[in-house]
Every structure is written in structure tokens, then in C-alpha cells.
């Protein structure tokens, strides 16, 4: 039981090479790996909420010398999101992967998937600043190769683009950690937090902060550093798109929150250096510009990818408001948007599986032959817009309340106005798939592909009505960030 924190990271890590050794059962191994990770995440979240933060010391070497794992409510919340989406994706993906990936590469695919999961979970679980970088690289490198396995050659270009941007981001993060290490002589986050206050006015620490913010923003795909994201989402295999869209940017945002609040202390980012002066306008730009671009896209995956950039804007907007309500809204939206985009991309992946294309012109009239898949897209789209009784409404509601609390009525107006643009691009999808005449009819996807999709969509509706769960945990998470 006390080892649950390390098992969370190690189980997928051990199972990844097994996919190489036993190629025939690679899918089964990936399924058990993500299911075990999900069980760990549930146990961890319950323990963190019930008993308190989990600390784990690797190798028996006490921090700050040794490496430690540290999971607080925010960490537990994100672990749950990542493992939940991973498990559903693996269940969904069995046939989708067979249809999109060459047969001799399927076991490599699942190996990479498990490594990506390992990296993602490690970033969240670790309490060591350098380990964040190491796990970030594990997750990123496996992601690059997963994207490169996409259907056509444009996937290679998308992967390379992400590789370059992602490496720049990771290098900036590493430089920042190096500068911090130079100043404090420690890499443990709690230890860093205790020695940084007296160094806060040195230019070295300020430079470290700047490098970190820009580097992580690249990985978050904060506007205007988002250029890698639309292509990566569009040309990656459907399975990878789902997992990336639902988890990767949220994990990067988690890193930002972790460093802003736990390592540097919230006062440093927002009172001393006024990061919100940059973050707030960029977030609003992200919401508007990306939503507008999404309206004019011709490919369903691209529409949703640009919408992701816009939704990331909502999350960073919540962070930039720099009050506890804004932070709660950001954390809730991280979770909700993970589920929304997960569900939507699963449905789109279903379309891709049957019709073989995600271009809107090939999907005309698909709503009539694939009613369940399309139903999921419509409900997911509603949640994306923020229609009441869906999860998207809850996060936007909290965001607007947070903005009004700071007397920023223009921000509240912007959020409402952007919802109309979101409604426009969602309507374009609905209009093409239901009302336009077309003969590109595919059959409905099999049940085991529908079930994970609808499970996520049903959760969206449930979390839109019963907000105690998500808001409750998010408030705890925000509280533990602000006053640890």
C-alpha cells in the first residue's frame, strides 16, 4: 500500500518492454498496464483526499539527496484523468490500430504507448525538478514516434515539427532547472521552495523563471506557441490523437502550476513578476483567434485541434486570473476538457475507422448511417460550447465567476462571446454530417468502440449535473497549491 506511488509509474514501465518480447499479446499487455495504472490512480486519489499527500522515497535515500515522489490532490486528479483516458483508449483502439498501423509495428506501437503513459504519470508523480524533465522527455520522445506512425507521409512532417518545437521547450525547461540548481544546490521541489524566497530578486532566478515559463508554454501549446499542435493532432494515428488531446497539454499545464505555485510560490509569479499581464491577453487571443481559425477548417480533426488550442486558452485564463476561483476553474477545465476532447476524438476516430478520412467533404451524410457515433459528437460538441447540463458549462461558469470577482467584466464577456464562435464550428460539423447529401456512408462502429466513447460522453453529462465531485476535488487541489 505504501508503495502504490511508485507502482503507478513502474507498472507501465515494466510492461512496455514486454510488448517487444511478446509481440502477439502486445494489446493485452497495454490493456492490463493501463488498467492497473487506473486502479493505482483511484487508490492514490482516495488516499490523498482522505489521509493527505503521499511521499515516497526511492532507494531509501532521503530527500533532498535522494529522489522522491510527491502526490498532492492536484497530482491525484491529473493521474486519474490520464489513466482513465488511457484505459478507455486502449479498449477502443484494438481494431483501429490494426487498420492504421503496419502489422509488424503494432507491438512497437503499444510499447511506445506504454512508455508515453509512463512518462506522463512520472511527470505528475515526481517531487524532483530534474525528474520532471526526464519524464517529460520519455513522454515526448515516445509521442514523436507515435505521431510519425500516422497514415500518410504528412505525419512525418508533423512529428518533426513537434520534435523541433518540443525539444526547444524541453531545453528551456532544462536550462531553467540548471539555473535553479546553480543557485540553490538542490533539485527537490520542496527543498527548492524553501531556499528560493531569499534568492527571488536575483537575475539568475528570474531568468530561470522566464525560461521555465516559455519552455512549458511551448509544451502546453499556449498561443502563439501552438503551431505544432494542429498538424500533430491531425496526422497522428487516431488512437494517438485521442490520448494526446486528452492528456498531454494538461500534463504540461500541471508542470506550469507545479512550478508556479509549489516551487516559486504564487506570489513570485503573479505579484513580483506579473506574469498575468502576459498570460491574460495571450489566453484571450488564444480563445478568439484559434476558435476563428477552427471555423474555417476543412478537416474534422483540424477543427477539433484548433478548438483544443482555444480551450487551452480557457485553462491558462483561469491561471492568469490568479485567484483561487480562477485556479479552481482552470483545474476543473483541465479535467473536463480532457474528457470532452477524449470523447470527441474517440468518436472522430470511429468515423475515420469506417470511412477512412476525416475531411468534412468525405463525411457528408455520415450522421444517418452512424447515428451513435454522431450522437456522441453532438453531445461532446455541446460540452465544448458550454451548454448547460454538460461539463463544459461548469468550467466556464466558474471561469466567469472568477473573472467577475476581479471586476474583469470584459474577460467574462470575452468568454461568452467565444462560446458563440465555438457554437459556429460545432454547428458546421453537425450541418455537414447530418444535413448534407452524401454517399460516404460507413456502417456503425462495433460496440466495444462505442462503449468507451459513450462512457466519456455520459460522464460529461453526469459531471455537468453532479458537480460536487469535480469541483470538490478541484477546490481541494487549488487550496493545496495556494497554501501547501
Amino acid at each position, binding site marked *: 500500500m505504501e*508503495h502504490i506511488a511508485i507502482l503507478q509509474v513502474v507498472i507501465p514501465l515494466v510492461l512496455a518492454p514486454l510488448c517487444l518480447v511478446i509481440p502477439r499479446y502486445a494489446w493485452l499487455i497495454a490493456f492490463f498496464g493501463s488498467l492497473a495504472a487506473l486502479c493505482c490512480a483511484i487508490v492514490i486519489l482516495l488516499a490523498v483526499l482522505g489521509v493527505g499527500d503521499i511521499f515516497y522515497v526511492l532507494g531509501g535515500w532521503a530527500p533532498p539527496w535522494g529522489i522522491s515522489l510527491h502526490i498532492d490532490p492536484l497530482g491525484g486528479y491529473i493521474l486519474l484523468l490520464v489513466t482513465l483516458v488511457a484505459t478507455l483508449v486502449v479498449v477502443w483502439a484494438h481494431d483501429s490500430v490494426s487498420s492504421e498501423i503496419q502489422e509488424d509495428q503494432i507491438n512497437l506501437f503499444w510499447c511506445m504507448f506504454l512508455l508515453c503513459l509512463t512518462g506522463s504519470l512520472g511527470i505528475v508523480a515526481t517531487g524532483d525538478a530534474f525528474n520532471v524533465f526526464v519524464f517529460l522527455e520519455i513522454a515526448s520522445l515516445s509521442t514523436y514516434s507515435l505521431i510519425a506512425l500516422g497514415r500518410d507521409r504528412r505525419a512525418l512532417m508533423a512529428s518533426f515539427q513537434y520534435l523541433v518545437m518540443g525539444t526547444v521547450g524541453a531545453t528551456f525547461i532544462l536550462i531553467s532547472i540548471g539555473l535553479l540548481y546553480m543557485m540553490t544546490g538542490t533539485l527537490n521541489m520542496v527543498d527548492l521552495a524553501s531556499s528560493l524566497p531569499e534568492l527571488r530578486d536575483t537575475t539568475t532566478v528570474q531568468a530561470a523563471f522566464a525560461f521555465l515559463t516559455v519552455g512549458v508554454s511551448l509544451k502546453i501549446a499556449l498561443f502563439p506557441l501552438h503551431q505544432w499542435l494542429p498538424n500533430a493532432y491531425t496526422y497522428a494515428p487516431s488512437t494517438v490523437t485521442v490520448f494526446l488531446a486528452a492528456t498531454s497539454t494538461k500534463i504540461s499545464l500541471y508542470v506550469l502550476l507545479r512550478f508556479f505555485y509549489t516551487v516559486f510560490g504564487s506570489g513570485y509569479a503573479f505579484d513580483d513578476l506579473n506574469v498575468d499581464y502576459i498570460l491574460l491577453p495571450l489566453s484571450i487571443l488564444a480563445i478568439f483567434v484559434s476558435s476563428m481559425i477552427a471555423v474555417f477548417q476543412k478537416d474534422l480533426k483540424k477543427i477539433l485541434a484548433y478548438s483544443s488550442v482555444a480551450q487551452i486558452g480557457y485553462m491558462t485564463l483561469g491561471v492568469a486570473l490568479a485567484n483561487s476561483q480562477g485556479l479552481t476553474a482552470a483545474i476543473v477545465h483541465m479535467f473536463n476538457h480532457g474528457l470532452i476532447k477524449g470523447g470527441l476524438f474517440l468518436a472522430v476516430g470511429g468515423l475515420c475507422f469506417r470511412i477512412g478520412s476525416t475531411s468534412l467533404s468525405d463525411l457528408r451524410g455520415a450522421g444517418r448511417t452512424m447515428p451513435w457515433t454522431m450522437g456522441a459528437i453532438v453531445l461532446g460538441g455541446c460540452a465544448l460550447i458550454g451548454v448547460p447540463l454538460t461539463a463544459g458549462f461548469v468550467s466556464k461558469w466558474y471561469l466567469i465567476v472568477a473573472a467577475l470577482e476581479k471586476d474583469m467584466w470584459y474577460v467574462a464577456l470575452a468568454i461568452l462571446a467565444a462560446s458563440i464562435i465555438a457554437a459556429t464550428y460545432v454547428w458546421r460539423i453537425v450541418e455537414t454530417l447530418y444535413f448534407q447529401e452524401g454517399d460516404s456512408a460507413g456502417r456503425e462502429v462495433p460496440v466495444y468502440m462505442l462503449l468507451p466513447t459513450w462512457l466519456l460522453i455520459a460522464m460529461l453529462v453526469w459531471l455537468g449535473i453532479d458537480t460536487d465531485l469535480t469541483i470538490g476535488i478541484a477546490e481541494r487541489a487549488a487550496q493545496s497549491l495556494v497554501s501547501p
Partner: protein
Amino acid sequence: MKNNFIVREVANLFLPIIVLFGFYVQFHGDFGPGGGFQAGVIVAVGIILYALVHGLKKTRQLIPDVFIRFLMAMGLLLFAATGLASLFLGAEFLNYSVLGSDQLTGQHIGIILIELGVGITVAAVMVAIFYAFVGRDAK
């Protein structure tokens, strides 16, 4: 290059020395400079030298891709298994102290196994990268 007498013979002469030196760096790593990563690269260099002189085809017959892939996985598995072994013996993950009869031997056994895992994986990955780049035209 195997038609060039001097290159071939010097390579053949050096090959065992390079690999032997790799093993020295590997197993002496916990007393002197070295360790799994460096040793893995040195052993891989030996194999790459062999491939440069005797050709890729012959090297691939000697060390097939499947075997390389197997080694890659095995190194990582050895690493993880060492960590899990200390977990099953009641200590933290990667706490070597419980692996031996007393703390000192435990630490020795632990670090040797871990470094061996690193060495195997690094050597295999190096050769795999070499195969991937050089083998592009062959396909």
C-alpha cells in the same frame, strides 16, 4: 572494406580488445570511472566496427534484429526487476540494501545488476540505431 588487408586485420585484432575493454568498464564501474552507459557504447562500437569492415549483411546474420530488440527489452526489464526485487523484499523501490546479506553487499549486487541492465539496453539501442541508418538503402 574487407578486401583491404590492413583495415581488416587491424579491425579483427582490435575487436576483442574493444569488447573486453567494454566489459571492464561495465563491471569495474562501481569502483572506477565507467558504468553501464559508457560500457554499452564501447561494446556497440565493437559491433559497429565489425559491420564497417565485414559488411552489414554478415553482421545482421551474426546479430539479428530480433535479437537486438530482445536485448533492448531485457536490459530495461533487468533494471526494473532489480527495483521490484527490493520492493518484494520489503524495502523501497531500488533500495539495494536488502538484496544482500548485509547493506554493503546488497548495494554492490544492486548497482552491478542495474548497470548491467543499462549496459545491455544501451549497447542494443546503439546497434539498432546503426542498423536503422545503414540499412535504409538495403530495403
